[in-house]
């Protein structure tokens, strides 16, 4: 038989065997048989002694081509086998991906402080400093500096926890404003501040009263601050907290530390102003008190009220949260049932 014929036959047969091999062991045997040191291709090379010298080169090239082909086919077959093995292994590793994952514990801010932080950040954006002050205050800062001298009838409006005749638990966070205004240097620009924090009043705790609650009071003092500025400021805050579609109105009111004094109502978010139980049929819900700072308050802080003036407002943080989230009992804030607290986990992301 012609060497070429033999080579062709070997090529066909080898390819067939490689394709048919089922495992690495068999494949290795085939490799040895075809391209091994004593394999069939080597034998063909050895039998070249009988071939014409000019044909030898040709045969040699043909043998090498077949060897390369076998090597490539063997490699491919080996890789394919490994791949299949891996696939089999992975198939055996199947798990139920619908089972829940292992979640890390993630805590949450109290809803009162979610509300407080939201307001603080809003005012920071408007250029306000957030200022803290003592919760155990003096009568002087809590009342007298705020234009509530001893014997002022409006002190009846605020039942106070006194510690002694001079010291008390603050009933409002406005004493922080008095303290800050007293120290403020107007050479550095206007005073724009909010003072958030706990306040205390002698109320029996029930669904709508709490002896401890939270306020955020704001103060802006400069040479040309107007009531229109107050109105504009309150409107943007109300819309920020209660929604851009809310309408607002100002009503005259009375606070000893502001004149004129107003209260702000927003259109009821339950009924959109139609009148319902939440707004007691009026279509409006009272949300805060405010006004132009009383000249006595400015003078008490050692600032000339003929030159400087401005506005102040007081936001009940608890009240804002109650209204915004539809909370029915103020005691829920302070009993801290974890099921109550947990429901506000996503609020900060909104």
């Amino acid at each position, binding site marked *: 038989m012609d060497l070429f014929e033999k080579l062709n036959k070997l090529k066909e047969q080898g390819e067939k065997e490689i394709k048919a091999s089922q495992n690495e062991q068999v494949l290795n045997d085939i490799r040895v048989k075809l391209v091994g040191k004593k394999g069939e291709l080597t034998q063909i090379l050895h039998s070249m002694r009988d071939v014409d010298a000019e044909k030898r080169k040709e045969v040699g090239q043909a043998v090498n081509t077949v060897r390369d082909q076998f090597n490539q086919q063997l490699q491919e077959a080996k890789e394919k086998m490994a791949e299949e093995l891996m696939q089999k292994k992975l198939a055996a590793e199947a798990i139920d991906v619908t089972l829940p994952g*292992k979640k890390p*514990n993630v805590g949450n801010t109290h809803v009162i402080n979610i509300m407080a932080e939201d307001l603080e950040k809003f005012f920071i954006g408007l*250029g306000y400093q957030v200022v803290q002050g003592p919760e155990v205050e003096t009568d002087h800062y809590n009342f007298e500096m705020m234009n509530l001298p001893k014997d002022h009838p409006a002190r009846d409006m605020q039942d106070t926890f006194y510690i002694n005749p001079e010291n008390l638990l603050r009933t409002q966070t406005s004493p922080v404003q008095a303290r800050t205004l007293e120290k403020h240097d107007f050479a550095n620009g206007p005073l724009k501040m909010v003072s958030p924090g706990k306040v205390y009043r002698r109320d029996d705790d029930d669904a709508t009263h709490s002896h401890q609650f939270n306020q955020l009071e704001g103060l802006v003092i400069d040479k040309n601050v107007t009531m229109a500025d107050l109105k504009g400021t309150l409107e943007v805050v109300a819309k920020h907290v209660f929604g851009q579609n809310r309408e607002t109105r*100002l009503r005259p009111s009375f606070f000893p530390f502001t004149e004129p004094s107003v*209260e702000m109502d927003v259109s009821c978010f339950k009924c959109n102003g139609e009148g319902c139980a939440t707004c007691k049929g009026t279509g409006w819900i009272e949300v805060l008190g405010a006004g132009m700072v009383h000249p006595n308050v400015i003078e008490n802080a050692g600032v000339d009220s003929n030159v400087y003036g401005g506005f102040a407002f007081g936001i009940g943080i608890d009240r804002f949260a109650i209204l915004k989230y539809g909370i029915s009992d103020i005691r829920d804030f302070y009993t801290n049932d974890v099921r109550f*607290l947990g429901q506000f986990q996503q609020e900060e992301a909104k």
Partner: protein
Amino acid sequence: MLVSYNWLKDYLNLVIDPKDLAEKITRTGIEIADVNHPMEGLKKIVVGHILSIENHPDSDHLKVAQVDVGEEEPIQIVCGAPNVAADQYVIVALHGSRIAGNEKIKRSKMRGVVSNGMICALQEIGFDESVVPKQYANGIYVFEHMVEPGTPVFNELGMYDYIFDFDITPNRADTLSMEGAAHEVGAIIDQLPKFADFAPKAELPDWTNDFKISVDEELVPKYLMRKVHGVKIAPSPMWLQIRLWNAGVRPINNVVDITNYVMLETGQPLHAFDANVIKTNEILVRQAVAGEKMQLLNETMIDLDPKDLVITDGKTPVALAGVMGGLDSEVTDATEDVLIESAVFDGTSIRKTAQRHNMRSEASNRFEKGLNWDNTQKAADMAAELLEKYAMGQTYEGTCVGNNQDKPKLVIKITTTKINKVLGTELTTAAIEKIFAQLGFVTETTGEEIAVTVPNRRFDIFIDADLIEEVARIYGYDNLPSTLPVGQQTLGGYSSRQDKINHYKKLIEHLGLFETINYSLTSKEKAKMFTTNKNDLIDVSWPMNSERTSMRQNLLSGIMDTVAYNVARNQKELRLYEQGRVFDTFNGEFDEYEHLAAVYAGTDDPTNWQHLDAKTDFYYAKGQVEAFFDQIGITDKISYQPIQVSGMHPTRTAGIYLESQLIGLVGQVNPIMTKKMKSLDVYGFEINLEPILDLEIPTTNAKPAPKFPSIKRDLSLLVNKKVTNNQLVAVIEENGGKYLQNVTVFDVYQGEKIAPSKKSVAYQLTFVNEEETLTDEVITNSVEKITNALAEKLEVVVR
């Protein structure tokens, strides 16, 4: 204050819809909490005339009445009221009518007898119990005069009216009268109200020469009396009763009703004395003397305070000024001559007296908040005239005067520029003058300066800011522009201290804790727990109850209240924290400190199906504290030592030290405390943040990541049980040489395999040389040095 729309029509020409008017008043002056239309929801309720009455055959308390209700035939009605009688004119709810509470009345049988409707009490057609005349409080209402049967009752009883509930702020006491309300409404609708003049006939001779009044001139700036003879006590006329009950005042008799009516109209409280009781013909108004007593109208005997102002007959108190009359000087059926007192008392004095004796009244409220000084004489005259008309009285000529000071006229100057500057408006001087005219204020304008004379009835106005408010509200807050403050830019932000606290809170929340807010006020016992603070508690002087007497010195006891609350509701997997202040006092100074505290109970993932939940224990809690200190970069300054603190487990609690300062604790809450909480194991920590907030923590100075690999060696030690980790680590670090970077304990074993007095502790040591690759020799030398030192100092055996 309840303001009747119909009554307002005496002074103003009102054509505006009452609800629209209420909205306008709310927006410009006084909040109207409610507009009540008394007949709203009622129908088919008419006057009936009881023709005859018989006992019900099957009942001992029901009566069967034949009632003329203006129809062809009388109708039969069964009635159970004790006061029903023949020939009465009564309120009849017909078949198909609707009474108060949206209740329908239908023809029915009562114990077998047909009843074609219902004879009503005032309460049944919507009257408040507090205004129903006493004689009809427990039965049906009976008209005191003849009324055509079949007439709807609504007009007859004044129910065709709109009652505005004025929610009056303390400064606007000027509207605690119909006159004040009329001025307010008039300003809003741009009408000047008109008021009638009063002058009694005064046909009896002048009495003022036979009577002497002297007063404390400082506390009683005005004190006037008129004397009326021969009054006959009787029910007031219907119109007067209607005005009173629509104003929320119960009609009593003509004399009392007239004094109340005058107060409602003018705002001036009056008091009527039985003149015959003042036998001395003298009135002396003075402060009480210590030990003095008097019996009041309501029959209570009170001990007078030397600061109480009393009306006396020269010797004995006959009334507590401005608050309540005395029992002895009360006007009764036997009274012949009445003294009408119209006065202005010092508001603070009256307020304190009313508070002291817990007797606030309509009168004391008005004295406290202020009166119109122009109405003192008018009110006395008005009362005298009405007593002539409705109580058959005859007035003596003359008013006896104890004091009659005048209030100096207050003139406030203000400029258009100032008003516009404060309001942010561009009002013209003419527009401002117009507003003051609407308010009834007299003005005089020079250029742009307006001099405003404040009438005495507006005793709430003192300074230009008050006038600016008047302009703003009448102009309308709705009409103000909306702007934001302009001017020099300011930097908004938190203080760096607050920034840090906010950051700490976020760190703690990322460790899985839920924030709680607990009460600062707590019991003395709880306030002093979980703390080593030796300073005194801050106590409130008048606590509401024994649970809220003192300001807390720790946060943990508040959080433990929250734990108890949750455990009682079967919530036992708890990870809670609080950031807030604690308080103490030392040498008269009050101090506040920011604290951070947390508790852990249960496991951290109780329903995990792979059981990868961790049971919270001491080391869990301590790990959280350590993670917190890691995150704020002060771990190398922190150490832990056993400590005993009330409320905490005596042997499972560590004090947390910042360098040498005790700043907090971490450990197990004493199981005695949690016995009532289903014996839950609770672990927690509390840290005083103040020393941490004061630390200056430098900015990180960056280093490249190490170029040479670190080498780890494990060390297994057998040690005496009492030897602590702190001791072992100290020796290791001291002897580890300069390449020892980290020492981590990775196993602690006590048990069967080793002696009972011993424990096995294993450490992993990490060595790093930043300059070159470490050789085995260097490390072996270091380890040998460590083990030798451990053996020598702590009798450690290396295993």
